[in-house]
Every structure is written in C-alpha cells, then in structure tokens.
C-alpha cells in the first residue's frame, strides 16, 4: 500500500491529501453539527454517564438512580460508570450523537465541552427551583458564555487533615484556622519534625496512589502556585504565570517533601496512622473521621506568601447536545439535585453541598461543624482571574483550552516530584500550553 502510493502523480496525491481528512471529518462528525437537543415526551428510557472513582460516591449515585427509577413509572434511567481517569477523554472522543442524555463532567472541562458542542444549556429542561437553589459558586462554574450548562450536587475543597495525637506526640503546634495558618517553611519544618519521630521516616500523604499526572494532581497542587502569587493562565497566556518565580520556588519546596511522603500504595497511610498529615480534598473526610474520630483536625493548606489557597469546583451534571428526551433528563436532574440525594451524596463523600437548602442542613459544614473551615474557604471565592491575598477558593481557568493546561501542569508536577528541575519543567509546560492555544486560535467559543 505505501509503496503504491508513492507512485501516484503529485496532483492526485494532493487531491487525496485534501479529500481524506474532509472525509474523516464528516465520517467522524468531528466538526460538530449544531446541537439539536429536543425536549421529547418526558417519558421512556434515558442513559446517564457518571464517573467511577471513590467507591462511596459510586454507591450513592447508584442508590439515587435506583430511587429515581422506583419513585415513578414514566422514566427509566440506565446508569453507566466510566473510570475517572478516562472519563473526560471518553466524552471528548465520543460523538455528540452517541453521548448519553445526562452526563457528569468535571467542573473545569465544561467550557471545553461547550466548545466541542457536546452539551446543551440546561435551563429549558431543569426546573427553575433547582436552578434557584444552586449555590452561586456552582452556578458560576457551570456558566459559559452567559448560559448555564451544568449544575453540581457538591462543591469541593482542599485541606490538610492532621492526626492530633501524632502532632502532640512530636510537639508540633498547628494552626486553628485561616488566620494563623502555617507558612510553607513552617509546614516543611513540621513535616520534617514529624518524620524524624516516625518509624519509617514518612510523615506526609499526598494521595500519591491516584497519580500526580492527572486532573487530581492539578487540583491538589495548583493551590501552591496560586498561594505563591502565580497562576495557571493569565490573560490567556501561560508564560509568565505558570512559570513565574513564585510558582517555581513553590514547586521546589513541593519537591523537597518527597522524602517524607508515604507512597500510600494501599490508600490507607493516614487512616492507619502511618503519617500525621494528609494533603487531600474533602472526600477523604468520611474515611478519616471513621478511623481517627476526635483525633482528626482539618487545617488550611500552607501559605506560600499570597495567602492560603484552595481549589474549588467539582463534578457537575449536564445534558447531552443530542438528547432526544431533554424533559426526562431535566426531571432526573431535578431529582438528583433535591435535598435527599444531595445530602445522601455529601454524607457519603463529605463534600460541601452545592445547593443552598442542603448546605444549610449539612451537619459537617454548618457553623461549628467539623468541616466548617472548608465552607469558610468557599465563602471567600477568587474566581479564576483575580487571585488576591484575601480570597481563598480559586476556580480553575474557565477556558475550552483547559485540557491542555491541566495536562501540561500535571505532567510538570509529576516530573518535578520525580526529581526534574522546576524551572525547566514549568517553562516547558508554559510554552507547550501557549503553543496549543495558538494552534487552536485561542479556543474562541463560537
């Protein structure tokens, strides 16, 4: 085959070269046909995709679906769980016509799916009450170009989970809230001091078993870049933001923690008392609380100079661009986002509820609740552009080019943890991101 091709005259070769990609474009529908979602009858079967990661979340979602199916006769929901690590690319590679009626999306990918015409605005299908009841932060996360595309059951927040008993035994004092937070130096000292007393010399867990070179890695460690005065993207450019001197030195500090970090292959380093500190999101709270009880403390992430920062935003729900049954999809979302299901889910995964009514009732996040700190952090939102020293919860860049940003940043993060030079790794990431944006003409949403 290849040999034959070479014998073809130049002209027909050029013709072929032009024709084939066009053929593929039409064949694969990659060019994207305009969304043609319709409301449908509001009854019948609909398909739903959710991400599969934390066992407790999976179970809660399965339960909600069962509840919905038995609560009424008209609509039958069929749920498919797709592994978290492949989830986003699965949606990217699937044509809109093959996508389910309802799909879960990681918050920062919503803009990309709007750009790729995978989803449709939800306001015409979901009830006004549901939209009204959503928290401001979660609505902002699901809004692209002024239209609402997604709503979530829960928001998210990062913290340092600490084992009071181990801290006390090592004589390490720890902050009580945002105002007396550890600086990065104090944090590193604490880690070192704890490690010195630890039988295996490891005192910190960063959930290494989930892999740093993933969206989870970006979510966990972008806060140190923000806290050091950097950003992932500034005015649509990564150069000068992601590789700013502050970001470089923050990643250098991060690198120095490796020798104190438990690889956590079994996922139990903190719960089993092997480490005193766990750098992780709210989702580990239920397991940690169960294992440690009143010995568990929740601290803000350390301050690298620009005030403590945390990530924000989480999995959200939207409607496929090609759904033939938008009404039924909306009815399912109304059900999913009611108090019962939001409370059940957030009890299972310990997340801050993303609806006003459920948040007010949440025993974990109400004033005086054990995770109140995370709620306080979310109450000081930065948005994705104005990262000042007084705000805490930062939204990851809302751009259709986010996949390139996170892929490059998490790759840099992973290689720095493996020993690479932070300056070189971040500059490389910056240039690769900027190149990708220019290849895609700045990812302008049409």
């Amino acid at each position, binding site marked *: *085959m*290849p040999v034959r*091709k070479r014998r073809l005259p130049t002209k027909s070769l050029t013709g*072929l*070269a032009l024709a*084939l*990609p*066009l053929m*593929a*474009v039409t064949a694969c529908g*990659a*060019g*994207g046909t305009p969304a043609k979602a319709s409301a449908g009858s509001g009854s019948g079967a609909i398909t739903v995709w959710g991400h599969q990661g934390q066992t407790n979340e999976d179970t809660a979602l399965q339960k909600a679906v069962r509840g919905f199916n038995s609560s009424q006769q008209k609509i039958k929901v069929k749920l498919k769980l797709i592994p978290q*690590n492949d989830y986003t*690319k699965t949606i*990217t*590679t699937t044509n809109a016509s093959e996508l389910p009626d309802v799909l879960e999306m990681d918050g920062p990918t919503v803009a990309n799916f709007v*750009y*790729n*015409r*995978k989803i449709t605005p939800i306001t015409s299908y979901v009830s006004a009450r549901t939209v009204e009841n959503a928290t401001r932060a979660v609505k902002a996360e699901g809004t692209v170009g002024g239209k609402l595309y997604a709503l979530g059951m829960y928001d998210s927040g990062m913290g340092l989970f600490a084992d009071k008993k181990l801290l006390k035994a090592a004589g390490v004092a720890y902050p009580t809230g945002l105002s007396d937070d550890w600086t990065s130096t104090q944090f590193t000292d604490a880690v070192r001091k704890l490690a010195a007393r630890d039988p*295996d010399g490891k005192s910190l867990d960063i959930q*290494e*078993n*989930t*892999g740093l*070179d*993933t969206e989870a890695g970006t979510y966990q460690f972008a806060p140190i870049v923000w806290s050091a005065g950097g950003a992932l993207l500034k005015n649509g450019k990564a150069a000068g933001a992601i590789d700013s001197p502050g970001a470089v030195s923050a990643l250098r500090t991060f690198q120095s923690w490796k020798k104190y970090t*438990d*690889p956590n*292959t079994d996922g139990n380093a903190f719960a089993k008392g092997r480490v005193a500190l766990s750098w992780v999101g709210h989702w580990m709270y239920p397991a940690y609380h169960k294992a440690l009880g009143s010995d568990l403390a929740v601290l803000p992430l350390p301050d690298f100079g620009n005030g403590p920062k945390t990530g924000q935003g989480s999995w959200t729900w939207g409607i496929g661009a090609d759904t033939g049954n938008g009404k039924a999809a909306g009815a399912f979302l109304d059900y999913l986002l009611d108090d019962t299901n939001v409370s059940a889910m957030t009890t299972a995964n310990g997340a801050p509820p993303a609806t006003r009514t459920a948040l007010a009732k949440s025993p974990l996040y109400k004033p005086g609740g054990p995770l109140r700190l995370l709620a306080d952090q979310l109450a000081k939102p930065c948005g994705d552009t104005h990262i000042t020293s007084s705000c805490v919860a930062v939204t990851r860049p809302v751009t259709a080019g986010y*996949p*390139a940003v996170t*892929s490059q940043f998490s*790759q840099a993060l*992973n*290689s720095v943890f*493996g*020993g*690479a030079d932070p300056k070189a790794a971040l*500059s*490389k990431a910056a*240039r*690769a991101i900027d*190149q*990708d944006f220019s*290849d*895609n*003409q700045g990812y302008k949403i*049409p």
Partner: protein
Amino acid sequence: MTSDSPAQALAAGRAKAPPPASARPGRPGRRNREWVHGLLMSAPALAGLIAFVGVPFGYAVVLSLYNVRLGSPLPPSFFGLEQYRRLFTDPDLSGPFLRALLNNLVFAAVVVPVQTALALGLAVLLNRTLKAIGFFRSLFFMPVVFPMALVAVVWRLILARSDQGMLNSVLHHLSLGHWGAHDWLGSAATAMVSVIALSIWQGVGFQMVILLAGLQQIPAELHEAAQLDRAGRWQRFCHVTLPGIRGTLVFVALLTSVLSFRVFDQVYILIRGGGLNEDATHTVMYEAVTTAFDRNDIGQAAAVTVVFFLIVVVLTLLQRRFVRPDPED
C-alpha cells in the same frame, strides 16, 4: 515483552519473495478458472488487511501533514512538515518525543543483549534429556501467557516503594536490616530498570523456546564428534553450539529489538497510578497514544506514528540483511 503479537514482527524478517508461480506445471485450461477461486478465497483477508492496515497507514501519513484536533469545531488546516519540525527540532516541544526515543533506545540496548543471553542460557540448560524437563520448560515459558496488563499490576506490588514492598522487604532481610526502602518505579535511576526487569520476566520464555528449537536442530553427531576430540564443555559451546544457532540467535536479537520499540502496555499502566517515573520510561508508543488521546492532537500523534513505523522498518530491513546469508534448514 509486549502482549501484541510478538510473532508478527518475528517472521517479518524471514519473509522471502514467494517462488514464481509460473515455475509450477499446470494445465492452461485450469488456470483460467483458478483465478476466480483464488481471488474469492483471498478476498476476505485482503479486504481486511487493506482496510485495517493499508488504508490507516496511508492515512497516518496524510494526517501528519495537518493540524487535526479531535472534537474541535475548527476544520483541519494544512500544516506541512510543522508536526515533524516540532518533533525533532523545536527546542520546547521536541523534548518529550526525543526523550521517548531515547528511552526506547535505552530499553533496547539493555533488553536485547540481556534477554537474548538469558534466553540462550535457559535454552542450553533446558536442552537436555532429564526427567521432568518438560515441566521445567513450561515453568519458564509460563509468564509468556500472562497478559501484560496483569504483569504490570503484579510487579507494581513487588516493586512498591514502601518498606513493605516485596523487593524492599526481601533486601531488608538479606542485608540484615541495612536496606532502606527504595522507590524502584519512581526514582529516575531505577524506573527503567524496573520496566526492563518485568518485561524480561514476561518475554524471555518466548525467545527461549525459539532458541531451544534452534539448539535441537544441531545434529547430535557434531557434539559427539567434538567430545571425541576431547573438547571441553566451553569449547563445545563456542565451536559447536554457537555456530549451529548463529542464524536463530541473530534473528532472536533483532526480533527483540523490534519488540523493544513497541513497548506500551506496562508503561501506560504503571505511569497511570503505579507511580512510575514518566520522564525516564515513557516510550514512543506511549507518546503517540497520549498525544492523540489526552491532548486530542491527532496530527502530531500521526507524525509520531509515522516516525515509529520508519524505525521499525529500518530494524526489520537490518534483520533481513543479517539473516538472509544464513543457510536454511
């Protein structure tokens, strides 16, 4: 070494032009009808091969000249040789690809001699008439039937970097407590060694069996004659065994080098969630898949594919050149 049909590459080098069909006697009357049957018989396979090997390969060449993004609303735009420039000469973007090439080269440079030597050693050990020798042969061959995805998972646990990892624990006991926990997969120095070790464990049985078959074709009289000449074991190995399997040996070595460039499964699984040091171990195929799949950059992934193919072809041609002068059995 790779779960993807090792044997396919294997025979590629041995392929020779078929004997001219006209050399055979045949009645002219028959020949007229035979082309119908011949074509019908071969049509399904030919159609499959053209559709799923020939066309996609030609398509890869075309795609590599375009800026094509998966799922993008922008139409593909002609890019000329830009993708290749980025792969090879761009100071920023060429980094990961060139590193992947280097990793493949390092992998091949270690695996080819070590695995071939090991396979030969095992083949010589197993080429004797002992009771239960068949049992031993199966034991050494057994890992070949393990899917690479499983091999990666098992070795991930053996090489776990905590002091409870099996290898660390064994070394701890052997060294009477002097061995601290080492991060086999995560450290840049040992990540590649780890991948090599598990790949050899899975793949060596395959090469061993080929060499064993080669050894068994050496006439026993040659060994007996050498023994009569009072040649020692080592001398016999050098002067009878080695020349007897020279062709097979060269063949196995070159086969291993082609396979070294196709490594993917174990690297992919161990980097994602196994804590494997990505920089030190990612291969050309890994680069192609992540470029297409994580970064949606089909054009660049196609360019990586084309370069990958050229490397394999060069290795295969080398294989042919080396093996051809060898006398056939």
